[in-house]
């Protein structure tokens, strides 16, 4: 029986080969060939595309995207951890409602939610109208780096709250009670028990926020204006506007490598391999 059900996966293996392996291979191929090569006959292998990336301009864009993504991830962690903790310590019926309220916004189109922030932050937006009403000067909020960071925090914070909540809710309450009985104060209990046990959730939260944040191109475009370009904007521009597939592919490969490296670093911290609150 077991041997025969193996064949069930064969259609998907064929599918994967065509639609997952082949495209990845094509991206790699474009990244190591020059623009002049057309067709199989005159293919020119080169590392020029990768070298071009080490131009200070592009390195700055990469550095900038990673900084913005890291700041957003940190803010998500600082805001999300207490929220996850509060949810996990409330009683069951309330807990489900709170979780539901965290997930519900994700059911609304992400672009639309981001666009709504333009209405709030804009020069004639709600905040500025309010400031004017109470006699203050207008503040430039939209099209700033702060707006980009806020947009990322807004869009990705549920991805931080949910895994931390999962890790915290699996925690054995007995451990905390035991520590309390043995005379540990609240700070020690948090530092020595709650925090280490919730680490797997924190790690998956960091990965799940950092990854989409570093590669997004919608949020910086809508909320950050064109002023600060992120790596995602650069890739989009190269493919859609400039049609420079070779350089675009090289940057995509670099971004993939960065994400794989940061994921494996994060996984190193994750001591508990099995019981943690992984994505799956």
């Amino acid at each position, binding site marked *: 029986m077991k041997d025969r*059900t193996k064949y*069930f*996966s064969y259609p998907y293996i064929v599918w994967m080969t065509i639609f997952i392996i082949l495209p990845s291979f094509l991206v790699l191929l474009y990244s190591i060939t020059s623009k002049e090569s057309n067709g199989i006959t005159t293919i020119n292998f080169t590392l020029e595309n990768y070298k071009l990336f080490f131009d200070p301009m592009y390195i700055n864009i990469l550095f900038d995207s990673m900084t913005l993504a890291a700041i957003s991830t940190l803010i998500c962690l600082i805001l999300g951890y207490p929220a996850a903790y509060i949810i996990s310590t409330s009683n069951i019926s309330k807990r*489900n409602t709170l979780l539901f309220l965290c997930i*519900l916004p994700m059911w609304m189109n992400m672009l639309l939610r981001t666009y*709504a*922030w333009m*209405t709030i932050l804009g020069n004639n937006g709600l905040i500025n109208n309010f400031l004017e009403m109470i006699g203050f000067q207008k503040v430039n909020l939209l099209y700033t780096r702060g707006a980009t960071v806020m947009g990322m925090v807004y869009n990705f914070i549920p991805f931080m709250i949910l895994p931390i909540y999962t890790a915290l809710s699996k925690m054995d309450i007995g451990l905390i009670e035991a520590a309390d009985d043995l005379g540990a104060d609240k700070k020690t209990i948090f530092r020595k028990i709650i925090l280490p046990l919730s680490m797997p959730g924190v790690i998956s939260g960091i990965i799940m926020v950092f990854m989409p944040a570093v590669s997004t191109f919608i949020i910086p475009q809508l909320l950050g204006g064109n002023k600060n370009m992120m790596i995602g904007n650069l890739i989009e521009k190269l493919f859609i506007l400039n049609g420079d597939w070779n350089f675009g592919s090289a940057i*995509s490969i670099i*971004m993939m490598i960065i994400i794989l490296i940061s994921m494996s670093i994060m996984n190193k911290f994750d001591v508990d391999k099995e019981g943690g609150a992984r994505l799956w």
Partner: protein
Amino acid sequence: MVKKYLSRIYMAIIFIFLYSPIIVLAIYSFNESKSRGNWTGFSFKWYLELFQDRDIKMALYYTVSIALISAIISTILGTAAAIGINSMKGKIKSIILNINYLPVVNPDIVTGIALMILYISLNIKLGFNTMLISHIIFNTPYVILSILPKLRQLDTHMTEAAMDLGATPMYALRKVIIPEIKPGIITGFLMAFTLSIDDFIISYFTKGEGVTNLSIVIYSMARRGVRPTINALSTIMLTVVLLLMIIVNNRSNAIEKSK
């Protein structure tokens, strides 16, 4: 006691942050004026106009049909694949699982451009089909990942018992395995549907002439100002989701109670 109030206030602030843009959108869908920012009066104008807006109606049609078709196909493909992968062993299994994981870990933008390169290299015309295929590609790994844990929990003795009692492998699959992993299949389907409805980046790179989805329409409007009809549409969609969730929640509560 103070702590309780503090945590209540904290959660309230988090939810105000999460819901303020949604509430703003919903309120402005009833605004008479087209411009966002100033309120000129209450009206249902945009809800009525929604039924005449061809662009939005077409986009809604494409979004829902692609989400539905891709979710169904990925569920079938993914269920079969998960059953197959589960009975594999060793290196091949881990290689397949890792490849399957690729669209999940890869940033959407990389998946998007990779597929765009593939279609153009193979001379496939960009349009409805490419968008549908792309959605199946990024949905299926999630379906597989939600079914595999259920298969691992499955008691192999049950299928063996069924076959000892004379069931053919196919019959055992239909009557034993599928019912047991049904929760995983349903989760996978719902996840696929949601991911597809909400997708922008992959659709953006694999769309063709005249075929758009709601996200792309919103994106192209965002710079010039989104038509309030979109606000109206999303208010309706969110209300529908909210009602569905409440109904599902009440039903499962009722089932729990009757047990």
